[in-house]
């Protein structure tokens, strides 16, 4: 029958999930992780590496996994096989797995057993499972057949927030229940005289002033630990809980978390707790904090597990990341801080400056002008030289390079620079450069070929010295190559320098926060064009001469990014992988590149919260980078990849002489304190041995999902998979289709994701962190390939605009190209193009005192890009704004200029959605239509085809010259719903009309056919422009389509529509036969779904659909 077939087609199946990790358990050398209804199995024994073995799908149906209980084996052999009880919400299932020799197999699974109430804890009792249920009752369940054996309630049927079952037989079974009254109730189910007769609690224990979220019992020591809403962990001495009437004594009350504590676990010698503050704390049983693990993002750590033999702690977060930490010893690999005992009668004077030459030689200079060397291996001080010209004021910098090149430079207040070979200090070379004080010194090294020393003197003059060594190595030569001139400012000196590969230019940062580009051999430049530019750069500056290219006055920069890092200055420049990275005391680091001889900012990134003094940046061997900086009174080495502080050194702050050096073998940090040199060293460089088993995605809710395009990688790129090949489905070895999807989130980031069609994995390629508030919407346009349309190489480019809270909007471009060195086989390059903030716009207006300041609390709710068919024009970005406006922004200069162009307050209520579409009809101009929808259920349609035309009637001139244009009255308004519209989509029909569908907060759907009719030519009066008439042809409403907000809606074809709602149903609707009719629906696992995007993949594959909310889930179906 047709009808029957229609009912099952199309059927959505889940292929990928990124949800909070809510269950973790170590079984032998495996780790089980619960994510939604799936179990991820990791192997922890593979030669020190950790890898994912398998995703066991859909164990708990529409429930989420909250825990695992492995059946204890009498012979203790869990290395090859295990029987696991998986539970969550009201569901329980038993699964038998084998995992010998690195192969995973699911041997058997029971039915999915539904309990009458929430399961808080489960425990194996000789082949049966005891369950602690939501209203303080305990049931004994036969999980193989699925039947209830015992059901014993407590006399106090309060709602529980956690429970813990103790004992190995029904007879000795003990339950500790955490009640809403914040009490612990201890009772014995076997005390029931008859079946189902309520049992009174044996003991009630008070102490916490908030709900108890987690408990852990350590039988060997008779301890119980509880974690609570009151942000504390309590340790109780309980003895053997299986014995009634025992004394319960609170022996520890641990305050250390800054938020609610979700999880607690007692180990033989430790107590582990983790909570909403994303910190996992390791305590002693005496309540002392031993370690703190930080790195998870977002709303907290939801699950913890421990591998006691290996001393590992594993945490799972709300960000869907899983991390492994070392419990003891190896936490901070540093040997700690040691004082180098400089003070001695034989060494007069006070230390003024310190520097590190490589990681094992330290140099320091005193106020008597004496230079000392400390060898970290020999551990003794040695005086290299003494020069009284370098008394009181002396700068000291060691040359870069693995062992500091064996050189260091000193500079004094009389304009003299001394270059000292460390091994033969007698061969030091002095050179007087300036009539006044040398403000700063920095080195620049190009391979082993070219070494420059830059010294800033008075008036912004930077002398560039070329350093070379005699072949004998006994003598060095210092030759002044040229002078540069910095842009004028109060503190006019440079702070850092580096060669830009291949070496024709130097990148410098200055105290004013500007980044400058200088030719490294300006004398060779004979091109007057460049000279002219250099002259323009210097302008009519000091140093007496206005002649461009005057070698004495100094060469100006060929390119400048003025005040990039603000008034506090640039702190470092690093060139790596085709990019320039700069750091500054504004708490940010920039990625730049040089194109056409000009510096261009690519991306601005912020370091960790509170670190407002970024001091440097280092590339680490695994391809990532670490950020150095000062956080209050600490020096911090921070990893942006793992959001982890790798090293923390309590040095007292950055306003003192300090030095940092790192090699693969060790890192060192030296600073002056109390007249002595303090040294922190850590073996293994900047890395820390913690492992990220799985990268987290967004820390908070995903607000918008947009698919950009697909990249097809040939087989030469290998299978982008972290699973074993034998678990891959046949046919997946061929060219891999990888969908590129952009998500944005309340965590203020925009993320570019790669979703391969074959492996059920997701890779976060890059994150853009420019927003200061939550990001609510992204829109994508201009999708192409990196080498143009003719280029057959795989890759993808696109332009993206993102917007969100605080009326902030950013525009950037992305380029995704193949990169065999990454796990995803892809690399994503992001370039920031433009940004816009409404209140900033106001600040820039000249007549702002006469204008109402636009409220910076305005949120952008939704974005739509309107592309014009005329080249070089636009596009327009339409934004739905919470202050009741629909605003049109004009993007010009291929995205580099973003301006508010027009606005309308037609809706007078918070506008929730905007959607743009085009109407094309033969012999007519292509019409560009915009639809907006607000919290009152009203839809408005606007024709914006002509808004950019000169003298267009679609816009009304602004009331005030400083204000944007006003969009006229809408072409059509329609009351589609009684309350807010949360989803909107259109599709052109074969008849030349448009299907418009909207979904609302009340769970209803509204579908209608919209006709766009051009008036006949004769009707047009005079020269007035033809304006199309919009008319509703057919209109249907489905009132109770969903039980909650319809947040995702897509018309796939004129006969098929798919909707998604917060009630977690993905529903297909048949269109075209009058009212939309229900076809089928699937329960999905992402709570609070905020957005959905669907796209066709290929004829064989069908459609894919990504749902974003508190997590991300990808579905697919065959067409």
């Amino acid at each position, binding site marked *: 029958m047709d009808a029957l077939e229609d009912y099952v087609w199309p059927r959505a199946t889940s292929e990928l999930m990124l949800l909070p990790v809510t269950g973790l358990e170590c079984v032998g050398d495996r780790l089980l992780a619960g994510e939604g209804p799936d179990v991820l199995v990791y192997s922890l024994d593979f030669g020190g590496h950790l890898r994912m073995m398998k995703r066991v799908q859909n164990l708990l149906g529409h429930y989420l996994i909250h825990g695992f209980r492995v059946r204890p084996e009498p012979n203790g052999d869990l290395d090859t096989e295990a029987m696991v009880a998986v539970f969550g919400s009201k569901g329980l299932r038993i699964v038998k797995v084998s995992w010998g020799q690195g192969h995973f197999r699911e041997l058997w699974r029971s039915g999915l057993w539904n309990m009458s109430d929430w399961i808080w804890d489960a425990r194996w009792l000789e082949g049966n499972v005891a369950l602690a249920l939501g209203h303080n009752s305990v049931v004994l369940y036969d999980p193989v057949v699925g039947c209830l054996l015992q059901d014993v309630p407590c006399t106090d049927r309060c709602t529980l927030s956690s429970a813990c079952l103790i004992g190995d037989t029904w007879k000795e079974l003990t339950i500790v229940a955490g009640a809403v009254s914040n009490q612990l109730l201890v009772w014995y189910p076997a005390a029931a005289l008859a079946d189902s007769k309520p049992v009174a609690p044996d003991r009630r224990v008070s102490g916490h002033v908030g709900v108890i979220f987690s408990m852990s019992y350590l039988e060997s020591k008779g301890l119980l630990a509880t974690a609570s809403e009151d942000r504390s962990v309590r340790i109780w001495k309980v003895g053997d809980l299986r014995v009634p009437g025992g004394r319960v004594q609170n022996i520890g009350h641990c*305050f250390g978390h800054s938020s609610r504590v979700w999880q607690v676990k007692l180990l033989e010698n430790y107590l582990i707790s983790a909570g909403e503050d994303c910190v996992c704390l390791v305590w002693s049983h005496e309540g002392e904090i031993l370690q703190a693990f930080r790195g998870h993002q977002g709303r907290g750590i939801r699950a913890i597990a421990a591998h006691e033999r290996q001393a590992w702690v594993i945490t799972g977060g709300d960000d869907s990341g899983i991390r492994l930490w070392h419990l003891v010893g190896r936490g901070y690999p540093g040997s700690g801080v040691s004082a180098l005992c400089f003070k001695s009668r034989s060494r007069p004077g006070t230390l003024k400056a310190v520097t590190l030459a490589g990681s094992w030689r330290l140099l320091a200079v005193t106020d008597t002008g004496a230079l000392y060397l400390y060898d970290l291996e020999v551990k003794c001080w040695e005086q290299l030289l003494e020069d009284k010209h370098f008394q009181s004021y002396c700068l000291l910098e060691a040359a870069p390079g693995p062992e500091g090149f064996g050189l260091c430079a000193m500079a004094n207040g009389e304009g003299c620079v001394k270059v000292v070979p460390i091994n033969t200090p007698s061969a030091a070379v002095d050179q007087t450069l300036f009539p006044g004080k040398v403000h700063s010194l920095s080195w620049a090294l190009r391979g082993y070929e070219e070494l420059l020393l830059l010294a800033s003197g008075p008036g912004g003059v930077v002398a560039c010295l070329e350093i070379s060594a005699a072949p004998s190595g006994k003598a060095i030569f210092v030759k002044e190559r040229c002078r540069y001139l910095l842009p004028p400012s109060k503190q006019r000196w440079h702070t850092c320098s580096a060669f830009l590969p291949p070496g024709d230019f130097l990148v410098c940062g200055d105290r004013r926060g500007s980044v400058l580009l200088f030719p490294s051999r300006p004398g060779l430049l004979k091109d007057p064009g460049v000279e002219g530019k250099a002259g323009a750069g210097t302008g009519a500056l000091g140093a007496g001469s206005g002649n461009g290219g005057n070698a004495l006055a100094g060469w100006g920069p060929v390119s400048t990014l003025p005040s990039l890092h603000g008034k506090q200055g640039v702190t470092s420049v690093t060139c790596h992988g085709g990019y320039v990275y700069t750091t500054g005391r504004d708490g940010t680091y920039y990625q730049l590149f040089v194109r056409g001889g000009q510096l261009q900012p690519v991306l601005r990134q912020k370091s960790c919260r509170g670190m407002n003094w970024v001091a440097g940046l280092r590339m680490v061997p695994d391809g990532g980078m670490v950020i150095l900086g000062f956080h209050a009174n600490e020096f911090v080495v921070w990893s942006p990849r793992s959001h982890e502080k790798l090293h923390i050194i309590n040095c007292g702050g950055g306003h003192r002489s300090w030095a940092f050096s790192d090699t693969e073998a060790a890192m060192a940090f030296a600073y002056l304190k109390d007249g002595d040199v303090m040294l922190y060293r850590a073996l293994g460089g900047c890395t820390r041995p913690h492992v990220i088993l799985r990268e987290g995605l967004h820390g908070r809710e995903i607000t918008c999902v947009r698919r950009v395009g697909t990249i097809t990688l040939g087989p030469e790129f290998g299978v982008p998979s972290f699973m074993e090949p034998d678990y891959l489905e046949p046919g997946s070895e061929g060219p891999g289709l990888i969908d590129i999807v952009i998500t944005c989130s309340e965590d203020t980031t925009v993320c570019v994701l790669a979703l391969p069609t074959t492996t059920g994995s997701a890779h976060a390629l890059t994150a853009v962190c420019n927003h200061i508030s939550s990001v609510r919407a992204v829109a994508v346009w201009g999708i192409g390939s990196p080498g143009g349309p003719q280029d057959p190489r795989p890759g993808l480019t696109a332009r993206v605009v993102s917007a969100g809270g605080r009326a902030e909007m950013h525009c950037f471009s992305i380029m995704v190209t193949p990169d065999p060195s990454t796990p995803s086989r892809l690399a994503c390059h992001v370039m920031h193009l433009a940004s816009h903030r409404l209140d900033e716009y106001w600040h820039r207006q000249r007549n702002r005192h006469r204008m109402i300041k636009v409220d910076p609390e305005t949120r952008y709710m939704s974005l739509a890009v309107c592309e014009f068919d005329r080249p070089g024009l636009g596009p327009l970005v339409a934004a739905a704004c919470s202050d009741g406006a629909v605003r049109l922004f004009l993007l010009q200069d291929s995205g580099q200029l973003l301006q508010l162009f027009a606005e309308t307050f037609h809706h007078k209520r918070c506008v929730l959605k905007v959607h743009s579409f085009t109407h094309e009809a033969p012999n007519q101009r292509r019409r560009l239509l915009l639809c907006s929808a607000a919290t009152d259920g009203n839809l408005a349609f606007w024709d914006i085809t002509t808004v950019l035309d000169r003298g267009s009637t679609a816009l009304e001139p602004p009331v005030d010259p400083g204000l944007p244009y006003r969009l006229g009255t809408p072409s059509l308004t329609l009351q589609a719903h009684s309350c807010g519209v949360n989803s909107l989509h259109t599709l052109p029909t074969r008849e030349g009309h448009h299907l418009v569908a909207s979904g609302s907060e009340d769970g209803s759907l509204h579908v209608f056919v919209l006709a766009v009719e051009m008036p006949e030519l004769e009707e047009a009066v005079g020269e007035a422009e033809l304006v199309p008439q919009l008319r509703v042809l057919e209109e249907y409403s489905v009132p109770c389509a969903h039980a909650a907000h319809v947040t995702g809606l897509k018309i796939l074809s004129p006969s098929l529509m798919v909707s998604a709602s917060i009630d977690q149903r993905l529903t297909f609707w048949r269109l075209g036969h009058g009212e939309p009719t*229900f076809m089928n629906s699937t329960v999905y696992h992402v709570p609070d779904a905020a957005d959905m995007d669907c796209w066709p993949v290929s004829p064989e594959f069908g459609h894919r659909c990504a749902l974003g909310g508190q997590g991300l889930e990808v579905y697919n179906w065959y067409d």
Partner: protein
Amino acid sequence: MGRTSKDKRDVYYRLAKENGWRARSAFKLLQLDEEFQLFQGVTRAVDLCAAPGSWSQVLSQKIGGQGSGHVVAVDLQAMAPLPGVLQIQGDITQLSTAKEIIQHFEGSPADLVVCDGAPDVTGLHDVDEYMQAQLLLAALNIATHVLKPGGCFVAKIFRGRDVTLLYSQLRVFFSSVLCAKPRSSRNSSIEAFAVCQGYDPPEGFMPDLTKPLLDHSYDPDFNQLDGPTRVIVPFVTCGDLSSYDSDRSYPLDLEDGSEYKYTPPTQPPISPPYQEACTLKKKGQLAKEPRSLRWL
């Protein structure tokens, strides 16, 4: 962000402070009443999970003013006293609480039971939805003891995955169940209110507080998990379109010409669970983390 930023983002938060309501939720009850005339003929009303007391404020103003009206507010937590409202600090799952309510009404059952309680959300959606459902069912359970036949019950619901199970449970006890959302409740929030009118327990139903009411499970016949047949009750939006939009950000000077003046919150929370932790943090007495391991 200054102290006014929340006033800009949330007009009802600001209006609540300016009108002396303890929480913005007062407007939700007022708008529900506008739509359903909840207070018509009501002389005895119970406010369950009353803290911080904004709904009790509304009840006492609308009912308590009529002279014969009685309002009882029940909450586990202490609540600042309100004139015209009798407070019971007790557990709504206890029979003694139900008896105390009836006692205060001099033996007569209540005309209206309202419950605006919500658990402190944990962020784990399934747990939060379950906890909210249990709170509603506990409120329903005590309502079966104190509500007169034909009486009305209004409770907050989270419209999540399993909300249809609650609807089917409520339909057992009431002749009319509607889902209502006041305009003062935000679009972005999953909260709504179940407005149940005409209390009519099934024949032979014996109120029993010793057993919790458990939520229904999916039924292949009339409330399917993923089929077309689901118990979705009609949805009503309350409050007229001219009322303020809770999602909209308003300028500080509203259109009615009134000049903005910052108002501090009416009633700050009384002894929150995290109080001790905050005090310790202020004094710098939280357990210290080790920094550099050894000082040599």
